[in-house]
């Protein structure tokens, strides 16, 4: 029997609500409507309005209320419908959730979990297609994760609830309908560990969330040319599992980062900088990035597709790093300026 990513998140929510009376879910339309992406469908009926709470359109107030409820001994799960709307609550995130433990000299913790949809691909245009998880990954005091598989969709939520500090979970909206076999028994990696989704020797492809599928597709295509790509699924965006990234790069001597964020100031830039700082002398070619074009995402399909990272682009960039398929790049090969 197949499970969708949406159902996997729901399974995690249900388990969390069953396991701990302090856990409750709140957000816009998580109850009667069943969730904007139908993630929480049925939970209101199962757990009642005290624990599955519809909120008004007040992102700052209900995310802040999540912080307060966490201070008050609860284990809130706040759903912000999408990252686009989370900007309205960013003050609460940066100035309160992330600082309270430090400002109080360690007296208070904020065991809050915030989930939100991110990303583009459904032609929702310039106000509904942001991928701003990279911004969240910049904030000291919070943790940021992006589950890309069914197991992680369920399991990372449960792990997040074990943390004593705020954890932000980003669910790429294109992942929700994706189906597969969910094995709830299988143990998943720790919350902040990256996972190698495909082992390879020629180049390291580093990605997360909604771009993992495209990246694995690219790896499969590259394999046909004899290019053996290793694919690292970051899973955790803050903290980054730098050792796993660096070990892979030491092995392959080449890296491409695939990130749906706008290129300038993307999370991909941070990863490139870390590789630069710590594996410069192991590199046979400059680290490359495949990111979104620097444009508010346009509505029409052909323009949206052109703005986002695509499998074909990943393949093209990797080939640029490995002239003469499978072979090593000559030391002086020109750096692609993608």
């Amino acid at each position, binding site marked *: 029997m197949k499970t969708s990513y949406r159902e996997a998140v729901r399974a995690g929510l249900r388990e969390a609500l069953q396991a701990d009376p302090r856990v409750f879910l709140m957000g816009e339309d998580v109850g*009667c409507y069943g969730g904007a992406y139908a993630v929480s469908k049925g939970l209101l009926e199962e757990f009642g309005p005290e624990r599955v709470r519809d909120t008004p*359109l007040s992102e700052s107030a209900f995310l802040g209320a999540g912080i307060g409820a966490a201070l008050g001994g609860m284990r809130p799960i706040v759903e912000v419908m999408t990252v686009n709307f989370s900007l309205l609550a960013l003050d609460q995130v940066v100035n309160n959730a992330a600082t309270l433990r430090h400002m109080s000299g360690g007296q208070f913790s904020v065991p809050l979990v915030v989930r939100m949809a991110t990303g583009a691909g459904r*032609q929702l*245009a310039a*106000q509904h297609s942001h991928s701003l998880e990279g911004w969240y990954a910049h904030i000291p005091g919070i943790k940021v994760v992006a589950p890309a598989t069914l197991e992680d969709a369920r399991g990372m939520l449960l792990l997040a609830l074990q943390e004593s500090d705020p954890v932000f979970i980003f669910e790429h909206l294109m992942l929700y309908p994706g189906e597969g076999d969910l094995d709830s028994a299988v143990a998943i990696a720790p919350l902040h560990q990256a996972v190698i989704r495909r082992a390879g020797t020629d180049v390291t492809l580093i990605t997360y969330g909604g771009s993992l599928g495209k990246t694995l597709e690219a790896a499969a295509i590259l394999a046909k040319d004899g290019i053996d790509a290793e694919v690292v699924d970051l899973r955790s965006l803050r903290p980054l599992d730098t050792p796993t990234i660096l070990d892979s790069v030491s092995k392959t001597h080449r890296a491409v980062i695939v990130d749906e964020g706008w290129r300038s100031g993307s999370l991909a830039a941070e990863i490139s900088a870390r590789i630069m700082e710590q594996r410069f002398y192991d590199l046979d070619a400059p680290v490359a990035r495949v990111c979104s074009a620097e*444009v508010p995402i346009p509505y*029409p399909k052909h*323009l949206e597709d052109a703005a986002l990272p695509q499998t074909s682009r990943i393949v093209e960039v990797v080939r640029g790093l490995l002239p003469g398929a499978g072979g090593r790049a000559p030391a002086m090969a020109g750096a692609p300026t993608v």
Partner: protein
Amino acid sequence: MTAATMPAPPALEPARGLELLRQMLLIRRFEEKSAELYSEGKIRGFLHLYIGEEAIAAGAMPALSAEDGIVATYREHGHALARGVPAQVIMAEMYGKATGCSRGRGGSMHLFDASRKFYGGYAIVGGGLPIAVGLALADQLQHRPGVTACFFGDGAVAEGEFHESLNLAALWKLPVVFLCENNRYAMGTALERHQSQTDIARKAEAYGIPSEAVDGMDVRAVEAATRRAVDAARRGEGPVLLEFRTYRFRAHSMYDAELYRTKEEVAQWKARDPITLFTAQLSESGLLPPEELARLERSVTEEIDQAVAFAEAGAWEPVGDLLRDVHTEAP
């Protein structure tokens, strides 16, 4: 002042009545066609229909003149049509064609028309209110007679930007009218589950500004109330808040199981369909000649068919222009 205490609007001359009726019909049929085209995959993304609420856009726009500005939401096809944006460029926009009113970049949620001071559809709930305040400020500072009409839903009333915008507009006595389309739901959340004070008009008290609750199913009541508000704003008396009580007959957007409301409730409101009500009004007052309704339906259908043909025929923007209009090209 509430709808109850309002003086009845002045008698209606025939032509105006038929115009209002045609406007509502045009919006209704345009939305029905859009739903069809969405199912066919011609229109994508989110699509929010205005069916059931036509009396508001149709009634409010005639109260605004060419120098006035309009700020709307993602549920704005009706407002664009009522403002006179040609159906064909709206349809082309929803197709994502370069011939669309936003050159295809915006889609259904982001209709713009500079020539008609249609300042756009805003899809972040509450996000349009500060923009409207700023447009009104620009008129005030430039001593222009313009008034800005800002449409938003009942859900937007919970957002901080509603509060900040009304305070700022009232403080500076800006020529802006806040037109709340209270259709009793914010997506699947009923009014009484998202507002502690469900009488939205009473919120004006917190800003010391006048307000009215208006029957949003009565196109003439909408027009009369909007005229009063716009005239006051134009006279420099500052902002007014109008609450139009209405109902959304269809789902929030195309996909929506409507688990959050009963069939009975929907049926009750459909019994007050603004088009049926006004049609009845007109014929009772002998202002709807026989065959006239059929004629209007035909002309509306023609207009929409032509709009679809225009959209179908429109060209796509070249992919090479992807980065166009991120910035203003240096003059």
